[in-house]
C-alpha cells in the first residue's frame, strides 16, 4: 500500500539529506520523493510516496527532525496528485499513425520524433501515466524518465488528515 505524505520543511541547506538519511537509517522505503519551493520562501514542500505499513513511525520520525515543520498524510483520492513522464516508444513508419492516435486519446504530447521512435510527454494523475505506459508497452518502450509525485490536498477543510498540528 502506497501512502503519500506532504512534508513542509524549513528551507535550509541539507534538509533533503536529513530526510533521506532518516529514511535510510530507519529502514523505511521511499517510492518517490520530490522537493521544491512553496508560496513561502522560508519553506519547501516535499512530497514523499512511501511503501509499507510503518506510516505512524514514518510521520513521527519525520517530526523528530528539527527542520520539519508539518507532516500531512494525503488520503488517496482526496488529493490532487500529479506526475510527469517522458517516454520514448518504438515507432517505425508503419505504426506511427496508430501510435499517434493512441497517444491523442491519452492526452500524451509528442515532444520529439526520430527516425524510429517518438517521445511523448504525459502529465497527470499517476493512473493516467500508468495506463499510457501499458498502452505503449505493446510497441516497445525504449526509454522512460519519470518525475516523483507532487500533491496538494483538494480542500483545506475537509480532505486532509492532519496527523499532528505542528
Amino acid at each position, binding site marked *: 500500500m502506497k501512502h503519500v505524505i506532504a512534508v513542509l*520543511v524549513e528551507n535550509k541547506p541539507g534538509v533533503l539529506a536529513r530526510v533521506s*538519511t532518516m529514511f535510510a537509517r530507519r529502514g523505511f522505503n521511499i517510492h518517490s520523493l520530490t522537493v521544491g519551493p512553496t508560496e513561502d520562501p522560508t519553506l519547501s514542500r516535499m512530497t514523499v510516496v512511501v511503501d509499507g505499513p510503518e506510516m505512524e513511525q514514518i510521520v513521527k520520525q519525520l517530526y523528530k527532525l*528539527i527542520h520539519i515543520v508539518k507532516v500531512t498524510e494525503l488520503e488517496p483520492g482526496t488529493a490532487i496528485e500529479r506526475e510527469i513522464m517522458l517516454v520514448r516508444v518504438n515507432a517505425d513508419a508503419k505504426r506511427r499513425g496508430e501510435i499517434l492516435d493512441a497517444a491523442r486519446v491519452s492526452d500524451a504530447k509528442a515532444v520529439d520524433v526520430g527516425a524510429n521512435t517518438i517521445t511523448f510527454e504525459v502529465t497527470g494523475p499517476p493512473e493516467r501515466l500508468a495506463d499510457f505506459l501499458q498502452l505503449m508497452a505493446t510497441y516497445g518502450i525504449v526509454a522512460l524518465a519519470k518525475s516523483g509525485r507532487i500533491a496538494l490536498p483538494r480542500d483545506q477543510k475537509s480532505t486532509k488528515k492532519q496527523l499532528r498540528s505542528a
Partner: protein
Amino acid sequence: MPEQLTGAQALIRSLEHEGVEIIFGMPGGAILQAYDPIIESPIRHVLARHEQGAGHMASGYAHATGRVGVAMVTSGPAATNLLTALQDAYMDSVPMVAITGQVATTSIGNDAFQEAHTWGMSMPATKHNTLITSAEEIPDAVREAFHIASTGRKGPVLIDVPKDVLADTMTWHRPGKVTLPGYRPAVKGHPRQVTAALDLIERSERPVLYIGGGVVAADATGELRAFAERINAPMVTTLMARGAFPDSHPLNLGMPGMHGNYTATTALQRSDLLITIGARFDDRITGDPKHFAREAKVIHIDVDPAEIGKIRFADVPIVGDAKAVLGQLLEEVHGREPAPARQSWFETIESWQTNYPLAYEQDPDGPIQQQYVIEELHRITGGDATIVAGVGQHQMWVSQYWGFEEPRKWINSGGLGTMGYAIPAAIGAKVGTPDELVIAIDGDGCFQMTGTEMITAAVEHIPIKVALMNNESLGMVKQWQHLFYDGRLSQTELSPHTPDFVKFAEACGGVGLRADHPSEVAGVIEEALRINDRPVLIEFRCDPEAMLFPMVPSGGSNDDIAMSREDFMSVEDPA
C-alpha cells in the same frame, strides 16, 4: 561602537553566556583559533587524551549534573573519534553540545588535510547538527544548540565550524530568541489521557510502574515516589533508571530484563498494566516483544512521541515531560479513592523475592567474585558514591548489587553499550560534582580501550577511583561463547597479567593497588579511599570463569529466565 570579535571569540563568549563552566576537548589545526580565547576565558578546559574520551567526559558531566556537557575537538580524525561518544549520548538521551573544527569553507569538498564530512557523518548520531558558514551566525547557532540539546527528549547537538569562520570578524550580538517553527516539544500530557490512565490504574489488579531513564532526565524522581506510593504499585527501574527510586523502598523491585532479577522481570511479565514512564521497550527489557507481558495493558508516558507505539501498542499514550505528567497524575489522583491494597499481587511478588533472590558465593579462599567487590565497596562507602560503569558483566553486576538510593549517581552506557565509557565518564562526573566520591567500576577489556584517560585524571587533578575487575577476559562475550558456542572460546581471553595495571596506573600519575585474594578486598578499598589528591586504581584479580545470571537468552521469552548455568542448560534443552 559595536564590538568586533573573531568568530572564535564569539564562540567562546557564546559558551560563556550559556553558563558553560567546563569544556572537554583537544585542540588541532582547524579548531586552533578557538583555543586562543580559552586562555582568558573563565571556562575550564580539560585536555583529554583522545577525542572519544572528551565526548564521554562531557556525557558523564551531563549525567552527574543534569547540565549540558560540552566537548570541543578539531576536524577530520578528531571528529570521527568523537562520533562514538555522540551516538552513545544520542541513544541515552544525554544533553551535549559538540563543537568540531572544519577545514576552511573554501576547502570543503576538496579532500583537504584533516577533512571529513562531519556534518553528514554525525547527522544520524545526533539530535541535530549544523554547519556554520559565517561568523555572524555563531551566537544564534550556539543558543539554538543548547536549546535543542536540553529540551524535549535531550540529546547531543553538533556544531561544525570551519577554520576561516573562526578567524573572520563579526559584530558581537547577543543571540535572539530561538525560532524553530518545527520544534515544540510537548510538556503537559493530554488531560483526557491522564484521566484514562488513572481509570486503568484503579481497575488494575497487577500494575507495575515500568520506569526508564526519562524520569531521571526530567528530574521527576520526587514526583515518581509520591505517585508510586499514592497508587500503591510496585516498580521496576531499568538500567538507565537505577536510582530514580530508592532500591531500599519496598515498592522497588529493581532492574528487569535480560540480566534483571527474577522478580522485576517476572512482575512485568505477569502484570495486567504497565505504567511506563520514560522507558522505550528496549529489546534488553522485553526479550521477544511478542512474548512480553502478554496480559498487560499499557500506559506509555514519553516526551518523544516516536517511542509510543514503536515496539508496543499503548492503550493510553501520553506525550509529555515525565515531571509535568506525573504532576498532572498526582493532582488528579488526589481526589480519588485510596489505592486498593492489591494484597494477592504483593504476596505473589514477595514469594518470588523469597524463592528467586540474586545469589552468589564468595569462597573465602578465592578467587574474588565481582559481586563481592561491589558489596564491599558499598559497605565501606556507605553507598554514598557516584558509580560509573563500563559495559559487560561488571556493569550488570553493579546494577544488580549496588543499592541505588538517589538519581544521577549511576552513570553508564545503556543503549549503545560502549565499552570504554567508564573512565572518561567518571572524569566528567567528578569534574561536575567535585565533592562526590566518584568510582569507575570497569572491566579489564573496557579499561584497555580508554584507560589512557587516567593520564587526564592525574594531570588535571581529577581524583577518581577505579575499581578494575580484572577477569582476564572479555567476560560477557566469553560467557556467550560458553553458552551458545559450546564453549569454543574465540578471541575472548585477554592476557592475565599484561598490562600490569598497577604499574599502568602509576605510569599515568595515579596510584595503583591490587587485591589478589578476597581477604585483601576491604583493605585496598579503605586504602584507596584515603587517597584524594590523585586518581587511584585498584585491580581486583577476579574469577575468570564467573558467569552473569539471571539471564534471558537474546530474543527469547522473559518466561524462560535462567537463574544459573545449570538452570540455563535445562531451559535450553528441555529434555
